[in-house]
């Protein structure tokens, strides 16, 4: 529980996740509980197959638990229907992927503006917001560039701009520096720190990289589907 008595931004309660691979059941998460206070910057660490990405996917609302509760920003994610969940994600969660996942045929600005297509904003407002987000990540002058014209670090910054453009409360990042050289990785981590500190974003990040994990306020280690700390 967070110190000031407020409800945590993320509350995972006794979550189980079982995958069925042919006849075999694979237990990925085994009764895991975790709380992330609002404004925290959390790193999820652990070996491959420990369930950290699955946990992140559950928090982000792109997967559902087999049992247990996942409450994010006051909403029990598992209770939402398919289209409600999609709408919920567009308002509450910003995604940062290892391979950036930008749409190659759209410009940086268009990529950033994508989540705003799901709002009622006018074209002009969408453009303005996208440019503002690009300014935050320091790429305003590259707004008309296509992803292939950008470096890896720049692509990830565009992806971060896309993640924050709709002003979500939670950012989820899956190995955000996993595909970057150390200099670019450093820039991205600094940017994430800024978003956490100055913009008050709650960040949950999965990483292998100890240097990345050190930038987080809290580190959780997963081992075979449970927290090992």
């Amino acid at each position, binding site marked *: 529980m967070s110190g000031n008595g407020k409800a945590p931004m993320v509350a995972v309660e006794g979550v189980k996740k079982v995958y069925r691979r042919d006849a075999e059941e694979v237990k990925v998460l085994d009764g895991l509980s975790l709380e992330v206070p609002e404004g925290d910057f959390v790193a999820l660490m652990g070996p491959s197959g420990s369930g950290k990405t699955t946990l992140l996917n559950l928090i982000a609302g792109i997967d559902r638990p087999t049992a247990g509760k996942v409450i994010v920003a006051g909403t029990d994610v598992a209770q939402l229907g398919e289209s409600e969940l999609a709408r919920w*994600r567009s308002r509450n969660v910003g*995604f940062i992927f290892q*391979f950036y996942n930008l*749409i190659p045929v759209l410009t940086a600005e268009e990529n950033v503006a994508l989540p705003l*297509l799901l709002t009622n904003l006018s074209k002009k407002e969408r453009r303005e917001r996208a440019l503002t987000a690009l300014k935050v990540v320091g790429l305003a002058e590259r707004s008309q560039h296509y992803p292939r014209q950008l470096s890896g670090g720049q692509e990830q910054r565009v992806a971060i701009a896309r993640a924050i453009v709709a002003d979500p409360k939670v950012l989820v990042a899956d190995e955000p520096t996993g595909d970057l050289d150390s200099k670019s990785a450093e820039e991205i981590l600094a940017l994430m720190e800024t978003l956490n500190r100055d913009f008050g974003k709650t960040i949950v990040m999965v990483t292998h990289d100890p240097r990345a994990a050190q930038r987080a306020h809290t580190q959780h280690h997963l081992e075979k589907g449970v927290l090992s700390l």
Partner: protein
Amino acid sequence: MALPITYNVRNVRVRWQLTLLAVVGIALVVTTIVFLTAMASGFSLALRATGRDDNAMIVQKGANAELTSGIGRNAAQVLLVDPRIARDDQGWPLSSPEILVVASYPRKADGADVNVSVRGVTPRAFEVRGGLRIVAGRQVQPGLPEVIVGERVRERYGFEVGSKVSIQNKPWEVVGVFAAEGSGFESEIWGDLETMAEPLRRTGGYQAIVVRLADPSTFEAFKTAWEGDPQVQVSVSRERAFYEAQAGPIAGALLGLAGFVGIVMGVGAVFGAMNTMYGIVASRTREIGTLRALGFSRRAILASFLTEAAILAAFGGALGCLLALPANGISGATNSANFSEIAFAFRVTPPTLFAGMVFAVMMGIVGGLLPALRAARLPITTALREV
């Protein structure tokens, strides 16, 4: 909210190598269908004849083509006094007694000898037959060795105004070219009946007589009366029905063939389009996962991919129509019941092109549906793991 169409347009453009195959595949199908339809519509027009419903066609009993028919001049005299036949203000019956022979000429395109119908008619024929007009030169003058040729004959054998045509080893001068609303007459050579009868050895009678009925509703009575008359030995049919009966099976078979080929090729193209769309979906699985994660609904993804398939197919359709356009006016030919060639012009009409486009877009949507459904149904986490 839906994904913007620019997204699809740019995808089609950027992945042009992948889409090109589908576009060309659909284009070829549309070309074939437009081509076959153009042929079928030109063909059915040529064989439909300009036959009028108030005209009766009289041939020898038992003959099912003009060439095998013969009506004696005496029988004709008897027939033409029938009061049901319309008359001009001088009291002459509106009738067109005609003789018909077949002559053979080398075709311009390949030099092969081809049979052409040569028809001897009276000056009244244009009026009685209807739908005929001189488009170059003039009418023939009775008594002179002159002929006029149908437009298709000029086109296929190069018989221009002023040239000579040999009929029964005698030279005849081409003095005019006539059109007949695309009908089979355009594949014939016409001359004056009395001038031609002697050299063509048809002095004894006619092959057929066409008469205008004063009142079309008297046709059945007219038919019953003369077919039952042992003196004249004729069979009577409506002019239009007579030519349709000759052409019907061929035209029907051709239209059926066009339809069949169209369906078979269409099914093939749908599979081609589907295969391409599957490829497109497979190469963009992670992109789809990303869009879903960002909050785009399944329906938005489905609509987006169907739009893309339709855009792709529309390109194919447009290309196909473009490829088929030069077919307009090409002439083809088939044999008539008179053992002579009937040429016809391909007709690529706006409705044909429109139908081709509609067909293309339908193929695209049907071909895109399954892959689009797959794209929309994929679990987000699965889609995001794809490379």
